[in-house]
């Protein structure tokens, strides 16, 4: 009976993922292929209030990042985290909350090759894809580097491998995300990005200390259309307090959405509304900790371009001719203590 067996699609998917896993674990030096998104699809929602089976460090000082950024591990083996892992030479300072398939991470990595960035995602399949993708990207870049350094190497010919484009002509952007990084060398080798499964609504402060981050990205968050689901939105006044805790003064929080109503929700939760002349001052809230960044400034920020055009979701919105609403907020300094 066909109904007794799992659907063929699922069997195929599981087999594919097993192969990806096996390929990554093998150390025979073969080229790691880019994972294909279609085998990692997952429904777009997760309940942020349920416990899940999450792993998270007891505190930021316990977090072991060494396996995530092998290129940035401190050579001094005596330096260890509270959980005994190796320390890094620098701290993680950019976070993409709800990174999905990781388009933003991959887009930003070459722009800031010396900045450690992490994508956080609650959905396991999607995260698995991104981890495989980063792994494959690093391996492909390594291959390209070796080839560039030693063009006569007798490396097995890869069908997709093209001769490298010269510096003067920019490489055409691959039509498929799964192909980025297979043909062109990018600065930083994608060693500066990683992905972690987490529920940031609960555990963001377990990963990052006070004022540790310089940028937080929240791209195309789950809009939770129904009013009774609004409490599950990733932007709220109380969560904004936590973002302010991990963001350093001057740090930026980027948001983009295709849902107009959500855009206004974001503005409403980061900024005080118009106050009537002579009216009472607004009640103190986390809104006091942020100010909106001007459009002129944003026009010069390459991160905004990546966020607008290179994430998977933004491409989908472009395809469907939807609107994109960008709002970026700067973390102000904490207010003076009341006398």
């Amino acid at each position, binding site marked *: 009976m066909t109904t007794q067996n799992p659907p063929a699609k699922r069997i195929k998917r599981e087999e594919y993922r097993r192969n990806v896993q096996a390929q990554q674990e093998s150390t025979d030096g073969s080229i790691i292929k880019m994972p294909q998104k279609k085998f990692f699809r*997952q429904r777009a929602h*997760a309940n*942020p*209030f*349920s*416990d*899940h*089976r999450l792993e998270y460090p*007891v*505190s*930021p*000082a*316990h977090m072991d990042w060494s396996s995530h950024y092998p290129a940035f591990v401190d050579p001094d083996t005596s330096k260890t985290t509270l959980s005994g892992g190796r320390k890094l030479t620098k701290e993680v300072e950019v976070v993409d909350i709800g990174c999905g398939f990781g388009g933003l991470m991959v887009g930003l990595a070459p722009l800031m090759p010396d900045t450690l960035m992490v994508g956080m995602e609650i*959905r*396991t399949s999607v995260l698995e894809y991104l981890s495989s993708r980063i792994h494959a990207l690093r391996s492909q870049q390594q291959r390209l580097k070796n080839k560039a350094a030693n063009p006569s190497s007798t490396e097995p010919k890869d069908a997709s491998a093209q001769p490298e484009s010269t510096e003067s002509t920019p490489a055409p952007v691959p039509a498929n995300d799964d192909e980025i990084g297979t043909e062109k060398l990018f600065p930083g080798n994608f060693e500066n990005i990683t992905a972690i499964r987490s529920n940031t*609504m*609960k*555990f963001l*402060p*377990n990963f990052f200390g*006070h004022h540790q981050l310089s940028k937080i990205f929240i791209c195309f968050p789950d*809009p939770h*259309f129904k009013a009774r689901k609004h*409490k599950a939105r990733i932007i*709220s*006044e*109380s*969560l*904004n*307090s*936590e973002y*302010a*805790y991990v963001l350093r003064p001057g740090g930026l929080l980027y948001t983009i959405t*295709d*849902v*107009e*109503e*959500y855009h206004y929700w974001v503005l409403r939760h980061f900024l005080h509304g118009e106050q009537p002349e002579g009216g009472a001052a607004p*009640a*103190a*809230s*986390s809104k*006091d*900790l942020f100010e909106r960044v001007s459009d002129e400034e944003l026009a010069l920020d390459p991160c905004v371009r990546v966020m607008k055009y290179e994430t998977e979701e933004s491409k989908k919105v472009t395809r*469907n*001719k*939807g*609107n994109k609403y960008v709002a970026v907020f700067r973390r102000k300094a*904490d*207010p003076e*203590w*009341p*006398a």
Partner: protein
Amino acid sequence: MASLQHPFQCLRYVNRQSAGQSDILVATAGRNLYSYDASSGQRLDVWPQPVDADVEDQSSDAAPASESQGPPEKRRKLSESSEEQKDAKSESKSKDSNKEATNSWTNIPLLTVAHGKYVVIMTSEDKCVRVLSLDNEGKLKQLSARTMPKKLSALTLTPDENNILSGDKFGDVYTFPLIPSGEYVKVQAPVKPYEPSATNLTVHTKRNLESLEQQMRQAALSRTSQAERVVLNFEHQVIIGHVSLLTDLISVTRPADSAVGKRSYILTADRDEHIRVSRGVPQAHVIEQFCFGHTSFVSSLCVPSFEPKVLVSGGGDNYLLVWDWLENQILQKVQLPGSEGETTVRGIWDVSLAPTADNVDPVKAIFVALEGSSQLIYYTVGSDNTMTHQDTLQLSGNVLEVTGIDSRGTILVAVDTLRQSDSTSAWKSSSQPPLETFRLSSGKWAPVEDPMVTKINSEGTSSLPTTVEEKQQKELNDSVYHLSNLRKRGDAYDD
């Protein structure tokens, strides 16, 4: 005492000698709030007042007398329709339902006292924060009743005692004035016609488009009969939010030192192992620190009045942590009896006693009780801010609440009168006295006679019906022992 009686769930010793009045003990047991003369133990008042002295079962549907003396309740049940002509009718209707509501709780798990003359309680089932006045004669009179959106797990006051702080099971901390100032004018949001936030620019699949179309049709139909949004109809502010169940909330003031002036903080604990340090009102949105170290839920926070730099915290771990809480620094990890995964800290209490003839040095004590345990663990805090275990007191029943009476050098312990010692479910056949008292002599706490306690114990609290159904028994057990439900089970659904 043949019949079973409710144990005291909350105790508070109200020191009023500075105001030239005699001290009062306020306590909750079952669905009642009691006030006692602290010297004689004479019961001064019971709230809500039973209409008939014999009526003690909870099914009584008459409104208690003291209830009607309070100001008219401002709360209005929102009916499905907000049409004008129906208002008058629903007004009288809702009054009835309010009367019912005043009788609908079975226990009072939270209590605090402001300015020595206001008692703030939360009645359990109706999630209602009630402020009562406590007059010179110890009489209780309800001044206000404010219904919260979620059941509270903690109730305290801002340092000036003029505002209430409440933490609820949804993770939110509210602040609202102890005494509501005048009539609250509800900020009426203009009733906007409902518009789906999704558009055909944001949803694309056939199914989503269909449901969007349906929403549009529905919106057109219900444009006129949109129910107004249910908002709290009293002055309030949400100041802190955890995306987790909030378990405890305390307000701490650090005295000025050489570097900084006096500063107040709010410490909150949640089910996800967090202890958060925020600034006090009005800057509670500024998070100053997290204290990381617990690996299970945190249920109790205690910053001893004698050492405000120190925090003692406990919960589902079989250890306590002693912190320099402003620095997220663990000063000490104190092992508790019992194994990991079973021990739950019910309460942590600080008691400080001035030096007496018996005790030359001032006493800086921390008492800890575990959930469903008849032992009370006694520690002292040394000059290096670490705790030393001194003694473990054996009580006649499970420890529910502890309060120190420094003028007498004693502690007062409320014990469970219903459940057998060291059990959270097995009932006794008859009740024993609800209070015990101890005095420190030569380093040990020994039981003492106290006329107040003797008198209170002889009168007892309210009796349970002679037969209690098993289901009701379980409800009563859960109303007192619910902390173990906070433990995370490993079988959570995941995908």
